[in-house]
Each structure stands twice: as structure tokens, then as C-alpha cells.
């Protein structure tokens, strides 16, 4: 099962990656375009989302409707998402349609019509999306948490701010596309069933003549507030908390991942056991690693009724801190098996592989093999994880709550 990663770099710097998967009839591809929320100028929070919609409203010779019909005609399962650093645009599809699909995506990225009359609905949808977050407190707590936790502008809301979206103009959005759709820094990946030579040939024709260039990484500012409460007369208090840890390229990365797994890797992990199984405080409780290139954290969510909110927060932060006091051999073994198993289970999905190899390249400048990741996980131990936790304890938290009651943050 030793997988091989195909790689080719276009003359303008655009990186093409691929991983062939046996026994599948589908392919998945994605473009990481360096125009994520944190990469955009001040005052334009939310522009990335508007742009990710607008560019699909007509491109090349096709009107918005014709383009949509052409994409649907290929049976594409499209995905567009805005992250801190990149806009990710891609699809999963039957392998035979890959060439045609790439041609259409070439149009979208290079020759979007960007008509004024199509800008308004794209912007309006983004504004409505921000408003709709108010009716989804669990999601909103995560958005706000990243805003407060990360040094500015890394955690900037990928949904945007209503005031900034309202003042965004088509002209300004065109400028942002011109400045940030930097194909020399774009990463393209494909996984599943495909012919890499054919893909490279087609991508060369589409993108090689396009702009190379380098964008400056954003200068980092201060972090936000340690505690933020948003009043909402809902049924639960939605608690989000984050604490700082190492980044994916740092020495102790695998130790951090194993530590989070001990905390929240399964139903026998500490948070689930202490918060839900023993005390019945929550239904939804979990923590996971969240890493960016310039900073990273462990993020945790718990939803509970108001009377239990304080106890829930106290038990959760207590478990984060208790991790440094000792971990058993058995816990470490379960954590390692869990991480390795999840790695292999995810490697069966073309979308998840296409995303995985692009993400690796973006973070590390290379693609890790599954074998390497397994070995690094295997290389951790009780001593290495507890040693890491002594050097980098989970002690300071950024907390956000949404609900009818505030909590006291120690």
C-alpha cells in the first residue's frame, strides 16, 4: 500500500500534486488559492466568501446559468471553502470527466466574468450567511473563538462582518482578485483515478502563462479577549475554548496530536469519560487540534444547560491541566492506534486524500507519506508526550460563551 505522490511544478511556480489510488472510479481535485480571510486587506472581512461565489457566476464564454449547467452536467460534487490562508475550490467526480472539469475550473479561476449585476447577489448571500450564524450558536461560538484566540488577523472570520460586507464594492473585489489570485503560489492536487501526464499537460496550457509572484505573509498583531460572552436566550450555554500549542511543522507536533487524542480521541478518552459518562453534563463535548502556518491551538466545544455551565467549564479546563500530571501507557497506546487507524480510514476517500496532500504541501512544503506519519506516531511515548506537556502545558485559555448565562473564567 505504499502510495506514490506525483509532483510537477509549472514555470510560474504553481505546484501540481497527485496521488493515484487503486480500485476507485472517482477522482477529486482542489485548488488552494492564497486569498483566504487573513490574506486580504483590512476592512474587507468576508470578501473571500463573496469572491468564491462571484467567480462561479459566469466565466469564459459561459453565462452564470450556462456555467452552472456545464458543471452539473459533469455530475460534479463541488466544494468551496474559505480558510484563514486560502480559498479552496474543488470537486469530486467520476474520473472520466476530470479533463472537462479542469477546463471549466480554468475558466472560473482565470476568466471569471465578474459582472456588476452578479456581484450584488453574491454579496447579499454573504451578508445573509453572517446573519444566519446567529441562529446557529454552536457554529458561531467557533467562529468567534478563532477571532479572539489567534493573533490578528489569522483568526479573522471567514464569514465576514456585516458592516464590511455592506461597504464592499465590485471594484474593490476585482482588485482583491487581481492581487490575491496568485497562481505562482497556488497549490493544485488530485487523487484517485487520473493520468498525471495528461493533467500536467492540461494545467500547463491553462496556467503556465499566468502571474507568478509572492505575497507577503500578514504581520501578526495582538490576540483578542480572554473571555467573551454573547447573550442569547437559547436552551444551552455554548462554550468554546482554545489553548495554544505547537504548529504542524514544529518538533513536538506528533506529541501534541497524541496528547489531544488522550484528551478527546474516542469515547474512552478523558473529556468524554469525565464530562459526559461520569457527570452527565453534556451531550456534545470534544476537543481537536487546529493548526495554521503561523500559530496553532487545541480547540474544544461543550454545550450544556445554564445550571451546569460553570461546572462543565471547570471540569473541561481541569482535564486539560491534569494531562500534564501524567498519562498511562494504556492511554498512549489507545491514542496511537486511534490516530493510525483514522489516518488509514481517511486514506480511502479521494476527496480526503486530495485535501490531505495539498494541506501537507502548504504547511510543510512537501507531502508526507502515510508510512512516515505512522512512524512518527509510533515514535511517541509516555515520556515524550509528558515531556512535551511540561514544556508546553495547556494552561491558558481563550473562552467564548453564547447563551443565557455567563461563566467565571479562572
Amino acid at each position, binding site marked *: 500500500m505504499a502510495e506514490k505522490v506525483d509532483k510537477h511544478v509549472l514555470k510560474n511556480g504553481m505546484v501540481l500534486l497527485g496521488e493515484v489510488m487503486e480500485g476507485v472510479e472517482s477522482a477529486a481535485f482542489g485548488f488552494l488559492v492564497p486569498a483566504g480571510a487573513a490574506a486580504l486587506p483590512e476592512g474587507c472581512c468576508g470578501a473571500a466568501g463573496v469572491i468564491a461565489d462571484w467567480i462561479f457566476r459566469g466565466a469564459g464564454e459561459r453565462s452564470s446559468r450556462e456555467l452552472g449547467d456545464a458543471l452539473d452536467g459533469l455530475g460534479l460534487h463541488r466544494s468551496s471553502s474559505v480558510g484563514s490562508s486560502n480559498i479552496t475550490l474543488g470537486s469530486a467526480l467520476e474520473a472520466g470527466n476530470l479533463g472537462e472539469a479542469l477546463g471549466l475550473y480554468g475558466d472560473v479561476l482565470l476568466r471569471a466574468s465578474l459582472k456588476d449585476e452578479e456581484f450584488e447577489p453574491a454579496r447579499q448571500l454573504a451578508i445573509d450567511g453572517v446573519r444566519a450564524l446567529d441562529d446557529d450558536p*454552536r457554529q458561531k461560538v467557533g467562529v468567534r473563538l478563532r477571532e479572539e484566540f489567534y493573533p490578528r488577523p489569522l483568526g479573522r472570520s471567514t464569514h465576514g462582518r456585516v458592516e464590511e460586507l455592506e461597504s464592499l464594492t465590485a471594484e474593490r473585489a476585482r482588485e482583491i482578485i487581481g492581487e490575491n489570485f496568485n497562481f505562482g503560489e497556488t497549490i493544485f492536487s488530485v487523487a484517485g483515478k487520473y493520468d498525471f501526464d495528461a493533467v500536467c499537460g492540461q494545467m500547463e496550457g491553462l496556467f503556465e502563462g499566468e502571474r507568478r509572484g509572492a505575497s507577503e505573509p500578514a504581520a501578526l498583531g495582538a490576540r483578542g479577549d480572554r473571555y467573551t460572552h454573547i447573550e442569547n436566550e437559547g436552551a444551552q450555554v455554548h462554550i468554546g475554548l482554545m489553548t495554544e500549542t505547537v504548529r504542524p511543522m514544529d518538533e513536538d507536533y506528533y506529541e501534541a496530536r497524541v496528547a489531544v487524542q488522550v484528551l478527546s480521541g474516542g469515547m474512552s478518552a478523558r473529556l468524554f469519560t469525565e464530562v459526559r459518562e461520569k457527570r452527565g453534563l*453534556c451531550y456534545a463535548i470534544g476537543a481537536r487540534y487546529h493548526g495554521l502556518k503561523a500559530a496553532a491551538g487545541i480547540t474544544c466545544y461543550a454545550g450544556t444547560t445554564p445550571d451546569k455551565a460553570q461546572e462543565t467549564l471547570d471540569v473541561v479546563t481541569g482535564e486539560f491541566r491534569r494531562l500534564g500530571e501524567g498519562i498511562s501507557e494504556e492511554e498512549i497506546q489507545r491514542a496511537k492506534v486511534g490516530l493510525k*487507524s483514522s489516518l488509514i480510514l481517511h486514506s480511502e*476517500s479521494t476527496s480526503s486524500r486530495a485535501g490531505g496532500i495539498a494541506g501537507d504541501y502548504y504547511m510543510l512544503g512537501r507531502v508526507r507519506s502515510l508510512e512516515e506519519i505512522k512512524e512518527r506516531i509510533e515514535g511517541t511515548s509516555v515520556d515524550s508526550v509528558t515531556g512535551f506537556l511540561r514544556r508546553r502545558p495547556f494552561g491558558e485559555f481563550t473562552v467564548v460563551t453564547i447563551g443565557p448565562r455567563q461563566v467565571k473564567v479562572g
Partner: protein
Amino acid sequence: MEFKKATLENGLVVAGEVNRSAKSAAVGFFVRAGSRDESAEINGVSHFLEHMLFKGTDRLSAQAVNEAFDRRGAQFNAFTSEENTVFYAAVLPEYLVEVTELWGALMRPALRDEDFAIEKNVIKEEIAMYKDLPSFDVMERCRGLYFGGHPCGNSVLGSEESIDGLTAGQMRDYFGRRYAPNNMVLACAGDFEWEQIVRVAEERCGKWRAWDAGREVGQVGGSGKKERREKGNLVREHVCLMSPGVAAQDERRYAASLLASIVGDEVGSRYFWGLVDKAMAESATMQFGAMDGTGAFVSYISCSSENVARVMDIVGRIFEDLASRGVREEELRKAKNKVVSALVIKNELPMGRLVDLGFNWVYLGRYRTVEEDISAVRAVTVEDIGSVIEQFDLRGFTEYILGPSRGS
């Protein structure tokens, strides 16, 4: 791909699809037990029982169960719907036998009073969590209104009141009625040894006694009522529409799925071009939900209060147009491509395959290959969809809206 099937003497069906090129395997127990099998007094018991199965057996504590799954790196969980409770795990092939043994043991749980008392709090937290999610809340309320008192409209979670009143004795009694071996299917998909799974099934499940769990089925629902409820903390209008459709056993289910995709797929559908593309609504989708003996088309739309009247007007016109002119050849072709590629992608994962394998046995009592499903989708004609529209007029919908206060 190789299909395997065995039936134990007590009626438990074991269905397997072996795929040697998979890197993992998935196993699941599919139990015909859901909220439609409950009375009002015990509403929520199927789902609560699903939680209680994780609490272990006479020999296994809850912690031991969780550790046993986690030691094998299993991605395991369960879900409960109106009609089924499904327990599943995806694992590396070398662990499938042990994980199947574990699930087999858990299907005869201890249902201890002390676990029941603690888990009641967790269930009530889950109910509270969904109350804060209007997109879910409105669907559940609409189901209740649509089925107008028929058990198919029962809430899966139950209410805080029904859960408060539920006793462990009532749960044991319900378990005794629904978890009969001949009311369950054990399914496996991916890379595994068939004979080993059959042996585990015989050892673990062979002694369970068969009895008739039963269920009354038939075409039900469609009150056609309309209701709006206000909640002070909401900012958007959350609209759910439901109208009758074909049953899970009906061959026309493929036509019904394609119709739902044409009307309300996330992109490229009539809802998309009529509502989302024009920024009238930020979300507008329709799904076809096939059930035992009945079925329904379910739409969910979220928009501003200013737009909701116009949105309903546009939806009305879409339904009118479908009733008078049906669907076009070109939109059917696109919908087929999307539905087929979704089938291909989903079934490349053992976990995705498991779900179809299990439910095909639960509803149809037979095996269907992915290729059969794809051919059935490809074979649907504009006329087939026309006949579904004619029999199940989308205009006769039941409507529930959750939205902000309109006073002052």
C-alpha cells in the same frame, strides 16, 4: 466484489459484501426500532436505548466497552431515526472480528438503573442542543404536523417531559419487543473473512429467541396544515415543507430521488436558480425521504423575514410549473449525473457501502449491487417523474415556519 448471505435459525440475517481491494472494513447491526414504534408515553425510548447499549452488558462496564473499541482504533457510533437504530464501526481489517464480537455482545445489554439515571441527563442535554438549532427543530415540528398524530411523526429524541417520565422498566420492556434477531440485520462491507463473521454471529447471536416484533405500515401523512411559531432569539425564517412521496419498497424511489434533486439539490436545482442564486434565501434544499410503506418530500429553506412571502410565492410557482409541465430532459440528465457520481463516491468507502447494504436488507430483503442502483437511476425517464408528480402533487404540502417575533 462478492456478496454473501446467511440466515441464522432464529432469523438473524447476516449480509456481507467482500471487497479485497479495500483498506478497511465496516460492520453494523441494523435494528428495526425507531420513534414510529413508540407510543406517546415512551416517546424517545428508541434513541435513549441506543445510548444505553454503549453502557455495557452484565460482564462489561461502559468504560470497558469504550476502551475495547478505542483499543482497536474503531470509528464507531450509532444513530436512531424514525424507523431504525443502527450501530456501526469502521476498522482496519484485522480488528473486524473482535469488533463484531463486541457489538454482538452489546446487543444484549445490561440496562442498569444507575446508568439509566445518568444517561437521562445526557439525553436532556441533546434535546436542549437541538432546540438551539432551528434548522433541525423546524423539521421535527413539521414532521409532527404532517403526520398529524400518527406515530411516524413522533420525535426521535422525545421531549423533556416524555424523557423525564420514562422508566428503566419501560425501556427494558421496549427492548424486549424490538430487539428480536428476526427484526435485525448484521451487515459487513470491505476487506474481511466471511466465514469468521458468520461464526461470530452464530456464537454471539445464535441463542437469541425469535419473536414477531411487527410494525403497522401503510401510506400515511399529509395533513396539509400550516403553522408558524415565533421565538424571540431567532433572526432568520426557517421553513420546512413536507408532502407525500413513494415508499422505500417502491421501484419509483429512483424517480422520486431524481425529482428531489431537480427541485432542491444544493446547487443547480430549481430552488437554487429561483431562490439562492438571486439571494432570496441563503439556503433552499429538498430531499426525498423513503420510509417503510410511505415516503415524503421534505424541503428546508432559510431566509429573511422580509423575503419569506416572496420565497413562498416562488416555491409555489415552481410546484405549479412542475404540475403543469413536468421536468425537462436536460435537467433530468444533469440530475442523473449528480446522483450517479454521488453513488460512486459514497460506495468507494466500506462505511458508505455498509449503509446501503444494511438498508437494502431492512427495506427490500435483498442485495443490490452499486451497478444495479446506477442502472436504475439511468433508466428513469421524464415520463416516470411525471407520473410521480401526478400521484404526489408537491402543492399539497404541510408547512411549518419557525421565525423571529413579528410583534411591534
